[in-house]
């Protein structure tokens, strides 16, 4: 039988639907997730299947409904809340940062918060400073939140089912550029094979999306795609890049990272989040702690250079990692 192809958005919606069928404690809340199907399609078809009792359109009250998800979770439900763009976290940060993330710990492990907070990330289409951020580094920095960042339809489904079944709060970040939306800039990898039956992908298992020997590229989300395109070009020049999709930052698969570095001796982190005090620095610190002697060159990183995401196209292109810049940086790294 031919492989079934789905967009990432469809894969996520299917994962949620299958868990809602399996477990009646699962329900979804968020803005425009019902009739609209989610602005990025992650809840398409759910209202028709499960009705408004389990697929709840909310008012623009993120602090209220994300806090309500926390409360419902502590009462034994398994809510999924959608924060339309991660950039809007600010209006709900107390609930996320001080409640969702900490209740289990503060209760001495006695209270569980089994919820999923899913949200859209990323730029590249001139949506400017308040609608283009990634910010997963901010949440990975916060103890008590699992951080999941799929890059493909296959991973998106397996990681979503895992997230819903997980007993801890999980933040699930989908990049707008990987969803397969008809109105977004095109991305052929946003559609891919997805098995129909439910399956899980355990957290803390990075995926080597392309094997290589000359350098290791560590990345997540849309930048996996950019890095794969770059690796293709690098191969033509005789440079063999290994592309590792971390898939989850918390928990982090240190073993796969360290093993790859021991093999290639060179590392480049590609990150669409802000540069300082974030994912790129953390990964390089871990490598310095655990594999410094294996490095043949100082690690390099490509990330947003600590500025808000600007609107105008040439400005935005200047700050986001691009295929060209990944290729150039990899070349420089291998030449060192």
């Amino acid at each position: 039988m031919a492989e079934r192809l789905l967009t990432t958005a469809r894969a996520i919606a299917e994962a949620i639907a299958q868990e809602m069928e399996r477990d009646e404690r699962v329900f979804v809340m968020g803005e425009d997730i019902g009739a609209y199907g989610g602005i990025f399609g992650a809840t398409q078809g759910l209202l028709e299947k499960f009705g408004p009792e389990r697929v709840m359109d909310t008012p623009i009250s993120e602090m209220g409904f994300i806090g309500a998800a926390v409360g419902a979770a502590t009462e034994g439900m398994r809510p999924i809340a959608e924060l339309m763009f991660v950039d809007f976290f600010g209006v709900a940060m107390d609930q996320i940062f001080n409640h969702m993330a900490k209740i289990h710990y503060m209760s001495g492990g006695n209270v569980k918060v089994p919820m999923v907070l899913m949200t859209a990330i990323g730029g590249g289409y001139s949506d400017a400073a308040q609608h283009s951020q990634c910010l997963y580094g901010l949440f990975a920095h916060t103890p008590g939140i699992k951080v999941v960042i799929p890059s493909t339809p296959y991973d998106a489904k397996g990681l979503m089912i895992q997230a819903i079944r997980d007993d801890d709060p999980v933040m699930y970040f989908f990049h707008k550029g990987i969803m397969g939306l008809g109105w977004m800039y095109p991305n052929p990898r946003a559609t891919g094979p997805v098995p129909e039956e439910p399956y899980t992908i355990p957290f803390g298992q990075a995926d080597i999306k392309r094997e290589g020997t000359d350098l290791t590229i560590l990345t997540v989300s849309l930048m996996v795609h950019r890095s794969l395109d770059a690796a293709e070009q690098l191969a033509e020049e005789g440079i063999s890049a290994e592309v590792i999709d971390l898939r989850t930052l918390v928990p982090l698969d240190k073993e796969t990272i360290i093993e790859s570095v021991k093999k290639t001796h060179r590392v480049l982190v590609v990150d669409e989040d802000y540069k300082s005090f974030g994912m790129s620095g953390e990964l390089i610190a871990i490598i310095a702690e655990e594999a410094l002697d294996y490095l043949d060159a100082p690690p390099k990183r490509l990330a947003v250079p600590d500025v808000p995401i600007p609107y105008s196209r040439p400005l935005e292109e200047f700050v986001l990692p691009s295929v060209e810049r990944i290729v150039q940086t990899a070349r420089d790294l291998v030449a060192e």
Partner: protein
Amino acid sequence: MALSRETLLQLYEMMVKIRTFEERVAEIYYEGKQPVFNIAAGPVPGEMHLYSGQEAVAAGVCAHLRPDDPVTSTHRPHGHLIAKGVDLKRMMAEIFGKETGLCHGKGGHMHLFDPELHFGCGGIVGGGIPHAVGAALAIKKRGEDRVAVSFFGEGAANIGAFHESLNLAAIWKLPAVFVVEDNLYAISVPKTASTAVRSNAERGAAYGMPAVQVDGQDVVAVYEAAGEAIERARRGEGPSLIEAVCYRFRGHFEGDPEHYLPEGEKEKWKQRDPIVLLGNQLKEQGWLTDEEAQAIQERMTALVAEAEAFARQSAYPAPEAALTDVFVQAS
């Protein structure tokens, strides 16, 4: 109180100006996005939220404002900024992402700032409401007679910032006016599904301020309610809330499939186009001929064309300019 011909014609002209600007922006927006829509393509990329249908609210309120009266707006800011008196050229250039734009290309259509007009807006729903409270606080501390106005949607009235802001403005008796534009929807979610009370005027009253609901398609009704509220604020008698019931004619953003709309609803509302309503009234009174209406339209079309030419001819900012303005430049 009957309004003078001069005032009515000014209101009419302002509504035509806003509509004309936006109709042209909509056409430009689809350049490079056809036959296949790609939000990142064309001379004006990104999201585009147009104000078409709600012009009476911006025009009716801002007619009472001076350039130094602070205004905060939303993701749908064009009408408010035009009614405040912006230079259309610099506004259009910002929408094109050009160096000559209001924000040198860093802001774009949702993030327009004009400090000379004390105007700001942004893409986080409800984000501007507390800023108007702060502006009003600054005015009160200095003993000035300026007024701060915040425009926002009925959807924004469900976010915490709205409730905290109203309470602060009321307890501090600030010169602020909150204008809720109830266009019935927050993206796809109808007000009836998001708001338990019938009108946000009830919420204004609950926070202890005079609050009214008006017909937002009727610019005269908006003008009169706004005049009272703004004068009250200037006299130091505290904040007010106005809820203007209106309708957006173009969808939440360009490309909105609008599957959520009940059949025939938009057509019904379009029959009460605020520009047509006032135009007809003026004509019945003998205060506007078809030729005069035509002349106004032509003048506005020329203004917008001039702004467009300026925007197209302007250069993009240098890419490295992305790195400046994070902090104030040490001089």
